[in-house]
Each structure stands twice: as C-alpha cells, then as structure tokens.
C-alpha cells in the first residue's frame, strides 16, 4: 500500500505541466476552440512528450507504462483543459493490445504511439444513451473483411481521427471493428462541443471494417473503463485548478471593504470544495489502481469512481462559478471554461445517475477498497 509516485512519474508530471503552462496557454486554447476544437499540431506535441506512446507495448515502439503514468499525465492535461482527446490513445492501445490480432496490432500500435494515427472510440448511438449493450450498428462479412452500417454520434475529434473503434452487431452479438476514416462509405460531420473540443457524427455506409474481436462487448467495456480512469484523473486536474482559481479570486475580490475570503459562509463552501476535490482524487487513484483488476471488480470500481467524480465535478464547478459571482459566468474569464469542461465530463462515459445504477446493481454483502 503505497501512493507515492516514482521518480519517473514525477518527471513525467513535471514535463507535462511545463508543456501545459508554456505550450498550451489559455490564449492558444482559445484559438484552437475558435478554429474548431482540435489542433493536430498540439496532438503532435503530446506525441513528442511521449504521451501517445505511454501505454503502447515496447514491442510496438511504445513506452509500456501503466495506468498510474496515464493518471499523472491526464491530471496535468486537465489542469490546462487540453482539448485533444489523448484518452483515446490509451483506449485504443489497451483494446488493440488485449483483443486485436497480431497483424492489426503491428499495423496500428506503432502509429498510435508516434501520434501519426489518431484512433478514437466511436460508440455512441442515438438510442443507447449510456448503455453499452445497446447497439444498432450492423456488420456483415464482405469481400475482404466486413462491411459496416452505422451512425455514431459525438465521436471525439470524429472528423479529424484516422480510424475508429466501432462496436456493431455481428451474428447476434456485439463485435468490435476498426474502420479507417479514409475508407469508402465513411463520412463525418464535425462540430464543437460545449467544452470547446471537437466531435463529429460519423456515418458508415457499407464501410470496409476490420474485425478486432467478436467479444466486442467485453472489449468495449475495457475501452470505456480505460476512458473512465483517464477521465477521473483529468477531472482531478481540472478541479485542482478550479479550486485554486477560486481561492485566488476570493483572496483578491473585495466587497464591503474586505476580501470575500473573510466571509465564513463562503469559507465553509471552500472547505466543502476541498472535500470534494480530495474525495475525487482518492477515487481517481482507486480507478487507476483497479484498471487491471478482473473485469467484474474493475467495472464496479469504475462505477464507484464515476459516481464520486460526478458529484465532485458538479459541486466544484457550480460553486466555483457561484463564489466568483458575475465574473464567473463570462466567456472572457478562464473559470467559466473549467465549469463547462466539468459539466461535459460528468456526461461522458455515463453520468452520475447511470453509474449509481451500476453500483446499486453490483452491490455485494461487503464493500470497501479491497472488496
């Protein structure tokens, strides 16, 4: 039982933080949002930092690191509200490594590691909401491989990505496929989302698809759980910064002749924000540490983590705005962007009520970190 970071992890954190502070300023970010919410150059810089390679096996030109390294990196990206969907590199790497045939791994993992290929999970369907087992997409055997009929929504950087991981029905069960964006029959319509990042509606009309695994639901669950752990870490970074901004503002803003940090009712609100932040950080550790547990235990852990994170994100985000007063609802002020980011994250990979249902359904007689 040890929650210290290794020296390497500390170096990783320092490197990412430096890049965020100097290389991904709020001004640059604002420019990226205005230009559509995704910047391939910035994604390239993440690759240069080694982040896209972090969890790719060394055999495929990756760094072969684990969930804690991901956590460290995502926390720091969260502090800067980095828009580029790095989490999907971890998702693709873990799914391909664990489920894809060797030749598919060899074809894609090195390119994911180098940042050359951005592969994203394209899973959301209109009727599914947060249920992974609801899937209308259909695959059928075709000349070489499979042909896919599907409409997937809110696909991160969906019109910028190079390929998609796509769940679809095959022989009465969900299988998982890889589809290239450049393939015939693929069309993507991009837009900006509430937090300023990019997403797209992606249509697959008889699109040629490569089978990753017929055990698609299991792979999809791993994909989403990898995403949840990364999101939890990212959220901790976002909240850490949100609390710091609030503290700074309260110690500077004066009303009635004193700083608003002197009002006890507001001070207690800040204490509660700190509580939510530290509970969230604890559950982010928990999520990353449980990512390698057996599937059932892992799924329970992710649901618990997302319930805590969801509550924390909502409280911290709303209170940050409230404690700032008018300035907190302006576009000009950075704080409102942290609030929007937290709002969107609560609704990503299943919201709080969804995961509460998961926890509720999965409850056992005993419970605790080790149960």
């Amino acid at each position, binding site marked *: 039982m040890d929650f210290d970071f290794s020296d390497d992890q500390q170096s990783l954190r320092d490197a990412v933080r430096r890049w965020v502070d100097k290389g991904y300023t709020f001004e640059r970010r604002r420019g990226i949002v205005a230009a559509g919410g995704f910047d391939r150059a910035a994604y390239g810089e993440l690759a240069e930092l080694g982040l896209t390679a972090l969890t790719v096996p060394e055999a495929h030109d990756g760094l072969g690191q684990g969930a804690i390294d991901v956590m460290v990196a995502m926390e720091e990206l969260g502090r800067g509200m980095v828009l580029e969907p790095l989490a999907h590199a971890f998702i693709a790497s873990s799914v391909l490594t664990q489920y894809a045939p060797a030749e598919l791994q060899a074809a894609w993992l090195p390119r994911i590691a180098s940042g050359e290929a951005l592969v994203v999970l394209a899973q959301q369907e209109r009727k599914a909401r947060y249920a992974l087992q609801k899937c209308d997409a259909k695959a059928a055997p075709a000349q070489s491989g499979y042909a896919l009929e599907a409409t997937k929504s809110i696909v991160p950087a969906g019109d910028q990505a190079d390929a998609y991981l796509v769940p679809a029905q095959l022989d009465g069960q969900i299988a998982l496929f890889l589809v290239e964006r450049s393939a015939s029959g693929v069309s993507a319509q991009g837009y900006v989302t509430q937090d300023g990042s990019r997403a797209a509606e992606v249509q697959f009309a008889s699109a040629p698809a490569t089978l990753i695994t017929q055990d698609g639901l299991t792979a999809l669950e791993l994909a989403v759980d990898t995403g949840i752990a990364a999101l939890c870490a990212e959220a901790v970074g976002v909240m850490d910064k949100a609390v710091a901004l609030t503290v700074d503002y309260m110690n500077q803003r004066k009303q009635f002749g004193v700083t608003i940090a002197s009002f006890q*009712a*507001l001070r207690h609100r800040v204490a509660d924000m700190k509580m939510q932040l530290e509970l969230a950080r604890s559950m982010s550790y928990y999520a990353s540490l449980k990512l390698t547990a057996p599937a059932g235990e892992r799924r329970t852990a992710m649901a618990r983590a997302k319930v805590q994170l969801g509550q924390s994100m909502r409280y911290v985000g709303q209170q940050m705005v409230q404690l700032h007063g008018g300035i907190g609802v302006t576009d000009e002020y950075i704080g409102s962007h942290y609030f929007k980011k937290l709002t969107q994250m609560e609704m990503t990979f299943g919201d709080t009520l969804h995961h509460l249902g998961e926890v509720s359904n999965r409850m056992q007689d005993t419970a605790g970190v080790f149960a």
Partner: protein
Amino acid sequence: MDLAFTPEEQSFREEVRTWVQANLPKDIAHKVHHALRLTRSDMQGWAKILGKKGWLAFGWPKEFGGPGWTAVQKHLFEEECALAGAPRIVPFGPVMVAPVIMAFGNAEQQKRFLPGIASGEVWWSQGYSEPGSGSDLASVKTRAERVGNKYIVNGQKTWTTLGQYGDWMFNLVRTSTEGKPQTGISFLLLDMKSPGVTVRPIKLLDGECEVNEVFFDNVEVPAENLVGEENKGWTYAKHLLSHERTNIADVNRSKRELERLKRIAKREGVWDEQRFRDQIALLEVDIVALEMLVLRVLSAEKSGKNSLDIAGLLKIKGSEIQQRYSELMMLAAGPFALPFIEEAMQAGWQGDFPGGEVANAPLASTYFNLRKTTIYGGSNEVQRNIVAQTVLG
C-alpha cells in the same frame, strides 16, 4: 381559507388568456417554448403589443396610466403570459425605473418618461453594478460632477443586461464622497446616445452577449435628469430593489419549463427510468411548494392582514428551481446536449443536429446561462444574510 380564485379573478384570467392567445405572435411563442434565442425585435415587438393594450405597464396604478390591478391580477397576468410562451417583459423600464419616477420624480419627468416606457417605445437599461461593486452596491464609484446645469459623468457600469439595445439608462452615481458611502449617491437618468457613452457587450459562458459594460467619458447629463434630491439616490435605489423582487420567484415560468422537461424526458427515453423520473418528481414537489409560497404572499397582500416578509426565500428557492430544471433537461439529453451549434439555437435552422433532435441544441447553454440566477438580483448569499437577519436579528 380557500384555494380557489374568485369568480372575478377567474374571468380575469380567461380574459387575459384569450387576449394573449390572439395577440402573442406564434413565432415568438415557438422560440420561448423551445428556448431559442430571442432577438431585440422579438422582445420589443411583444412589449409594444402589450403597450398598445395598456398591459406593458401592468403593475402601474391607474393615475399613471396603468391598469390598477390587484396583486392577484398581476400574478394571473404573468402566469398566463408565461404559460403561453410570451417573452419575459424586460423589466428595466416598466418594472424598475418607472416606480422610482412615479414616487420620486417630478411631474415634468413623469410626463416626459412614463409614456415611452408604457408603450414599449423606449428601451431602458440599468446602471447599478460596477466592477468593484456587485453585492456591495453602496460602494459605487462612477462620478457625476455638477457643473452649472449639467452633470459631467465619468466611470463605468457593468452587468448591464441587454444594454446594447438601450435608449436610456438609469444610474446610481456618486455626487459626494463625504459621510457614509450611502449618503453621496444620486439617481440620474441618462440618454445612452449622449457623446462619451460606450457600450461593450460581454460574451457570457453560453456564447451569448446578454450583458454589457458601459463606459462614461465626460458624459454631459442635464441637471433636470436628476431624480429627486442630490445625494438621496440610495433611498430611491432601495425602493427600486424592492420592486425588482416582484415575481422574483418566477414560478409560472418554472411550471412551463417543468412541462417541457417532461416532454424532453419522454423523448430522450428517461421518463420511464425510475432513477431519473424521481428527480423530476422532487422538482415537481419543489415547484408546487414554491407556488403555494407565492400564493401565500399574494393572499397576504390582498387582505393586508398578515405581512409575509419572505422575498428572500422566494428569490433563493425560485432561482434554485430554475437551475435545477435546466440541469435536468441537459442531463436528460445527456450526450446529445453536448454539441454546441450556435445556429441550431436560432429559429428555423435547417441543419442536421447530432442525433436528429434539434430541440436538444439549447439545453446546455440554458443550464450555463441560468447559473446567473443565484448571482444577480442580490446573490443568494446576500439573500440568506437578509433572511437570517429577519429571523435571528
């Protein structure tokens, strides 16, 4: 005790309903019912329709050209407008500055300003908050220096709601720095087309420009535009704030939005999920409880027997409910509330909204926008201070 409105009140409600149905433009109601963005001409258009009927000044006494309605009649009028999907009446003219002009302005000012307010022709803005002066209004710094028969105004106002459309503006300005901060404030009416006035819209987190900064650079204001006495403006300001809180609970609008929330929940497939539905049920209870609280206040005003000093409670609960319904709407749509497509929040957009349901387009923006409700009009923290003061002393 009786829950039913009197037959007279009910027929009044019928009269309002019939008239609103006949006169509220359908396209405007459509925008309101779908939380689409309203233009200046939507808002002013409806104001002028009301003005023509004599109902824009619905809260005014007869002597000033108002209908002279009772508190209950005003409530019923506002409820019928809200449920029909009428835009909120922009309050700065008819609800805020007009009562001050009636109570403290001279006959000349009343004659000059009230008709334009009542007709909806003249758009008024509010000049209260300043960058350093939000909850602490008495600390206003914008100076007005008397030079001959003019005031020379320098300084800055902020959070001026819809100020980009304003013709006139009422301002709290500092005319003296002696004594307590409250004693050196005056209440000045200012033509926004005067040289030296600059309006800079502030973009809010939902992408809209709903508020503004207004800068004054040696703006000349005729002394005849001073309301009441110099340095007595704080008294008038408080009078205004007491009027600002009329209908602050906004329960009628919340009832309409609860209906919309239920439609969204059905469309998005969460109406039959007990876990989500329970959240709506809790909100429904909140709204009924708030409505009862409002009715109690109306009854007390009507009979004059019991005074109910609970404006703070109405503000707190009303704003929390607004935030909650907008949050639940967004959560109901979930992933499909995430695309931010500005054009999709305009009426008549013909594009493809992700998932195919364009009615989801404004949900997150509305949620973001309504965070303001616990901040403005006296933040909920200030309201709790006030409530505690009445309870604890």
